[in-house]
């Protein structure tokens, strides 16, 4: 007997992500899903972003890692509410893991929630968390072939940060190639060059992020 079953395989995750999104909208919090390979600079970018925006808005952070709480400790040092998720082997965060952290946050007092995904250029792009924006980081040390090799993450992200731009003289990486290939995959993607070490481009990045809060129709609480 053949049974017609037309269902989204990830429907359970999609349902939870939709509930998360509804809560974030109701609580007027902008949620960003930050994704990159391990070592591209997600936590460093977060530290710089917090330093730059902390006086102007209330920020919370969810740290996703396979194990350890080193990233959460770096963020906690900034006196910011932070929750560490240890996936215990899973290569990505999903909607349910995000929902499980909600009791740690006072959403009524939060303007921006950043989810630092597990370091991985493949899997996190496939799982909706209920976020408003997905942002990818690619560091110049990883090479300019990454958009062509891992197109999904570049296709799904609203912004791409090209990090460690201060290392350009020392690596064989063409920023022009990264730009051209990323725009071929995603014609709408915003591309910003930054260096978390020197601070180059951080104010432009923070302006882009602050604009997203306005674009969602949210004010600063």
């Amino acid at each position: 007997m053949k049974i017609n079953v037309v269902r989204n395989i990830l429907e359970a995750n999609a349902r939870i992500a939709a509930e998360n999104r509804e809560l974030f909208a109701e609580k007027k919090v902008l949620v960003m899903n930050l994704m990159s390979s391990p070592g591209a600079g997600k936590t460093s970018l977060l530290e710089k972003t917090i330093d730059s925006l902390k006086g102007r808005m209330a920020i919370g952070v969810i740290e996703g890692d396979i194990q350890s709480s080193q990233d959460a400790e770096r963020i906690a040092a900034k006196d910011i509410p932070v929750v560490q998720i240890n996936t215990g082997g899973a290569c990505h965060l999903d909607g349910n893991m995000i929902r499980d952290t909600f009791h740690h946050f006072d959403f009524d007092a939060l303007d921006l929630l950043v989810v630092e995904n597990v370091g991985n250029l493949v899997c996190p792009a496939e799982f909706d968390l209920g976020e408003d924006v997905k942002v990818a980081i690619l560091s110049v040390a990883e090479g300019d072939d990454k958009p062509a090799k891992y197109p999904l993450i570049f296709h799904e992200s609203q912004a791409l940060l090209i990090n460690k731009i201060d290392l350009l003289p020392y690596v064989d990486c063409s920023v022009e190639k990264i730009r051209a290939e990323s725009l071929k995959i995603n014609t709408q993607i915003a591309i910003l060059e930054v260096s978390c070490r020197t601070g180059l481009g951080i104010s432009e990045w923070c302006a882009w992020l602050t604009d997203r809060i306005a674009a969602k129709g949210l004010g600063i609480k």
Partner: protein
Amino acid sequence: MHEMAITQSLVDIIAEEMRAHRAGKLLNVRVQIGQMTAVVPDALRFCFDILTQHTPMAGAELIVEWVPVQARCESCERTFEVKDHAFVCPVCGRSAAATSAGRELSIVEIEVE
């Protein structure tokens, strides 16, 4: 290896459908996977075989239909197949943003007895 998480969701749906239809054994399952997904079919099959061991789904065939990536041009509104991940309209040469197919991750049909 997010294929394990995806396959677990697939197996959960099949189990639910088999219960609803009082089916005793799964013969095959047909899924549609878009080419703009990060899914490796061999990994999916490997996970499916492991997760269905000692269940009424054991030994069932996993039939994967690949869905090519399509986009709709925002200028001339033509739909075209996206090759090499280039979302550029082959007719008018403009960039297209709207992906109309290729992100599928769907179960389509199961055959049971």
